[in-house]
């Protein structure tokens, strides 16, 4: 009798756990169509080869540098560990996490997010943190990122957060219940469409142009971590002008770089030299580059990397070449698909905001 009760209890417990697990799988956002940025962080774990260059940061890295062009032109193996509005502390913990799996020769950090000194938005936090594998880095990343309305337990059990998402379920939630498609090209988010830059509103005057202490402390931590691991850290500001990058901020980063013996390259004044034409090299009026622009940027940046760092040309090494041949094929296939949609519909329909379910 007692044994029978125990078995019944165990069966009930198992059934409950299985039910909750399935519900959680169903209800958490899949980020597979339209808003794919939430899939970026977890895609990193699907990599099968290491990388000599690792980029971290927000949309100014994952939309502006073609990793496949870096490979094709220079044989550089790179990955962009980017996510939407990736805050400085998230970049640090994502870097710390990545260094559990590999030690790149060069880490590239885009500095725009240093303008944020405090947690900003749950939606963006989720996109940067939910995809991380559990580790002390993820725990610390969550604790550093939560807004006042968020609760740690909801990161541990996302069902508690998304249990009311019934009315938002779409076909992706069923199709990608257990598996996900790749949405980036080694972290690069592809857009081939074009919307010319026509101008931006004047920058808002600020009462205080000092970059926040909290954000800068994480830049220092990134610097120290890279130094400890023997990695060269490169600070960059992407060539896009909006959101506005104030001269005062630029000076602070330049000073930080000098004090820490780091290179800092602001690409905004170098756009002509790079060959960027913001009438045709952007897909959203100048906020981000399109693929044509990202390929130009990769050619220019790759030349800098090859000249200044001891990077290997892996194009003739079979193990890497076969992996990158697959990546290149996927890249070209998606590029063609996007061009086909542009030709057929005059706009992208399966990518970007038009595809949001």
């Amino acid at each position: 009798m007692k044994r029978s009760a125990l078995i019944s209890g165990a069966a009930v417990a198992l059934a409950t756990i299985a039910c909750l697990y399935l519900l959680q799988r169903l209800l958490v956002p899949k980020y597979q169509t339209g808003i794919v940025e939430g899939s970026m962080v977890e895609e990193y774990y699907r990599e099968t080869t290491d990388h000599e260059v690792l980029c971290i940061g927000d949309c100014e890295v994952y939309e502006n540098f073609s990793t496949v062009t870096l490979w094709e032109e220079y044989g550089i193996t790179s990955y962009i560990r980017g996510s939407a509005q990736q805050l400085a502390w998230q970049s640090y913990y994502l870097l710390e996490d990545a260094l559990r799996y590999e030690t790149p020769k060069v880490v590239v950090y885009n500095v725009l997010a240093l303008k944020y000194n405090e947690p900003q938005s749950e939606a963006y936090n989720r996109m940067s943190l939910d995809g991380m594998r559990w580790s002390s880095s993820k725990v610390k990343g969550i604790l550093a990122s939560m807004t006042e309305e968020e609760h740690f337990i909801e990161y541990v059990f996302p069902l508690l957060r998304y249990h009311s998402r019934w009315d938002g379920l779409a076909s992706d939630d069923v199709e990608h219940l257990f598996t996900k498609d790749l949405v980036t090209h080694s972290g690069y988010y592809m857009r081939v469409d074009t919307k010319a830059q026509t101008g931006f509103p004047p920058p808002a005057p600020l009462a205080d142009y000092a970059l926040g202490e909290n954000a800068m402390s994480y830049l220092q931590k990134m610097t120290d971590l890279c130094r400890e691991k023997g990695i060269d850290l490169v600070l960059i500001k992407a060539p896009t002008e909006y959101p506005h990058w104030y001269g005062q901020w630029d000076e602070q980063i330049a000073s930080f770089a000098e004090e820490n013996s780091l290179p800092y390259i602001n690409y905004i004044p170098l756009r002509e030299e790079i060959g960027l034409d913001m009438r045709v090299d952007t897909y959203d009026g100048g906020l981000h580059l399109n693929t044509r622009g990202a390929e130009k940027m990769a050619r220019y940046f790759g030349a800098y990397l090859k000249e200044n760092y001891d990077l290997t040309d892996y194009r003739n090494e079979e193990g890497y070449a076969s992996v990158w041949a697959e990546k290149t094929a996927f890249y070209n296939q998606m590029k063609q698909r996007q061009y086909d949609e542009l030709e057929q519909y005059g706009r992208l329909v399966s990518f970007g905001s038009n595809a949001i379910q």
Partner: protein
Amino acid sequence: MKKRIALMLAAALCLALAACGGSNNGGQGQGGAADTYRFTLKGVEVAVDAEMAPIAGQLGDPTSYFESESCAFQGMDKVYTYGSVIIRTYPQDGVDYVLSIELMDDTVSTPEGIRIGSPRADVTASYGEPVEATGTALIYEKGSSTLTFLVENDQVSAITYTSSAAAS
């Protein structure tokens, strides 16, 4: 029989958990415009965290308009320019709210009569002691609004109302 009831109860518990709760799917709390600094433009009252659509409707066509999609399509950041005043908005739950109001030149003034070029002393005479004063800024707070006067050579050089409720 007991086993079946227990399994049914477990399933019911799962469904209840999944179905309960509101529809809060992320983002920030609702912004409000009560008890904040207010600015009057062409007879229309504008306050940070107020809904922009009715304000835009009353103000008519802006001199210029700019919008940009936020990363990962979390909404549109919009910038309306009405002559010498710029109003920026932030999206929340599909609605645009006023993020900031900037006075660009001395043709416009705050309801208390301060404009670009006003002496620093006039600001403190009109608004009292600021919550924060630096060499270049006088900062006042009311509710979720912050009113900042930038000062150069003892004269106001910029005036901005901003929301502290919206994540910047």
